[in-house]
């Protein structure tokens, strides 16, 4: 288990001390995070790192997960798609399942949640837990990781009413915030530079980890890592690859993704992608297990070109991961990708398979540019998107919630070091 001190080597000792001092203001505060899966997807990944680090700082933080049947996840997947703007069906049957599942989970988690000083509810899945906690003592915060900028209105209309009793919300970007009667904090997510997905790997280790996929070492690789989800546009990446291949016949494509336990659509999208790939021997479609972090790390390091051609994206942690490995990213001009890919500086923003193909060809022809942009990308992540910054913002907003709501909160408590 890593300690906060371990991050001094990457982020600096001053950053670690700053975290310790902020955490000292939160001693004795009981914090609970609740989401809907321990495996797969960015939220679980962040919580897996963030909660132990809070513990290491002496904060009483824990992580709980709501559980449900297939119909529950079908409903919440519809919510997810709807909140990102896709018209989806909202059957009474699924909504009842959603409400009942939240109610039954509330019974199981009641003692923990009622006693907590601060509860973070992640995304819509456990949103209704608050309704079943009339005797709650603490402040409840809804942490929405989804691109909520242009939701399908019927879904948001249904869910919005359940957000109103929350003390505050947290969104990744200002563009995602909504008209709500409470404070809306802005906190972008982060990556952990020391976990298996992002730690340094020797070139021999990269080669060894990529060996099972039989990539030709002499030919360039285009890569997109993400769940098989239509919003990630894997078929658009395939089209871009074909356009590139006309000019660079040696290019290979890797589409690597895992499945999240709360995503029932993944299988269908994977089939569509396989169909579209049409058994091209240079297209490698990899369905990776949830613990394939080292493999993903190696693939990102091996790749010549990294894409994240999403058409909707809450944040896009795979973009951050690739940038941390010194790769410029060709990303869809949407959501949190815009916050990371600074056009022509840390990568390129594109709006079509043609745009992705054009930028890929450019980078394949300009390795010096890849190096220059990759360096900028890595430093940009170091300054802004590491877990230490994320932790600092969580700690700061918790202090703000506890100590007052003025613009300037002066905490007089002396911090012993």
């Amino acid at each position, binding site marked *: 288990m890593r300690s906060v001190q371990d991050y001094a080597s990457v982020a600096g000792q*001053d950053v670690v001390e*700053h975290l310790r*001092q902020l955490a000292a203001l939160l001693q004795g505060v009981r914090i609970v995070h609740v989401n809907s899966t321990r495996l797969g997807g960015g939220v679980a990944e962040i919580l897996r790192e963030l909660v132990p680090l809070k513990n290491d700082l002496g904060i009483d933080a824990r992580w709980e997960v709501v559980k449900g049947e297939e119909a529950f996840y079908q409903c919440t997947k519809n919510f997810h798609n709807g909140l990102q703007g896709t018209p989806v069906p909202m059957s009474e049957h699924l909504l009842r399942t959603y409400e009942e599942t939240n109610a039954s989970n509330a019974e199981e988690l009641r003692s923990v949640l009622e006693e907590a000083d601060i509860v973070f509810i992640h995304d819509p899945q456990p949103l209704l837990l608050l309704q079943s906690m009339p005797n709650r003592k603490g402040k409840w915060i809804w942490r929405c990781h989804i691109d909520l*900028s242009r939701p399908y209105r019927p879904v948001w209309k249904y869910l919005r009413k359940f957000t109103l009793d929350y003390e505050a919300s947290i969104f990744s970007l200002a563009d995602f915030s909504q008209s709500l009667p409470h404070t809306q904090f802005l906190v972008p997510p982060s990556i952990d530079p020391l976990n298996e997905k992002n730690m340094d790997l020797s070139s021999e280790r990269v080669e060894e980890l990529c060996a099972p996929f039989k990539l030709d070492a002499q030919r360039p690789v285009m890569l997109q890592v993400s769940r098989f989800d239509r919003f990630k546009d894997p078929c658009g990446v395939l089209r871009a690859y074909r356009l590139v291949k006309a000019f660079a016949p040696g290019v290979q494509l890797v589409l690597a993704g895992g499945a999240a336990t709360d995503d029932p659509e993944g299988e269908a999208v994977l089939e569509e992608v396989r169909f579209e790939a049409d058994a091209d021997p240079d297209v490698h479609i990899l369905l990776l297990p949830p613990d394939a972090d080292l493999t993903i790390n190696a693939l990102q390091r091996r790749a010549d070109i990294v894409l994240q051609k999403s058409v909707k994206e809450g944040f896009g942690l795979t973009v951050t991961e690739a940038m941390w490995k010194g790769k410029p990213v060709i990303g869809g001009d949407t959501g949190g990708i815009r916050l990371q890919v600074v056009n022509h500086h840390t990568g390129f923003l594109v709006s079509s398979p043609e745009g992705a193909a054009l930028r890929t060809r450019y980078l394949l022809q300009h390795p010096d540019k890849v190096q220059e942009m990759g360096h900028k990308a890595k430093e940009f992540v170091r*300054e802004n998107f590491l877990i230490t910054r994320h932790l600092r913002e969580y700690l*700061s907003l918790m202090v703000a919630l506890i*100590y007052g709501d003025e613009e300037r909160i002066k*905490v007089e408590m002396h911090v012993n070091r």
Partner: protein
Amino acid sequence: MNSNARTPFAVKDCALVAIATGQKAQDLRELRDKLHVISPGSIYYHFWGGRLRPRFDDPQYVNDFATWTHYQVHDEMLAERLAIVDPKEFQDLESLRHELIEIVEQRLDEIQWPTVVPSDRQFHFIRSQIVVFDTGRVVESPEDLAETVPRMSLGSVFYHFIDARHRLQSGRNDFYTWLDGFGDTYRDLCVQIASIDPYFATLSELRTNLGRVFSEYFGRATS
């Protein structure tokens, strides 16, 4: 001997939380109208507060209004005019607000039709909450600044060097104010500190620059 010779410099730290105000602008008219009513805290955030938030250090456009005008509105003339606004030349945030409104008004007079940006490219007004806390660390004598400043967190640099300008009526930073309390003893050092421009540097650059000034002044090697 004056009072500062006995009062150590208490090192404080701060962290910033960004908050969406819900106010947005899709064209220059809306930007001007919102500038009239937005809280001073939001103007502070878009000029200074963002230093403690994820952002790409664009060498051309150091405030969010200029950045938006350049990248989203594509009005280069206005972007340049907004970029050159130096917030430290304004006595308070209200006068800064009026200057911004004036510049946007002038541009609206010059152009026939203000460009309307797509709805996902709007300017979002953000405000912030600043949590200020004591680090428990003190600098007993000015010589110690050479060693303390390079080890300060970026939050401390922000608090003492940038935030102080708005906190203190004098508009000076905390280092200057403390050293000034020693009378003429550190006059030259005060001048050197005052010449460090906080507007075009990142917080880590500011920390390096301050550390260098203190080290050189007190004859210590820069780490």
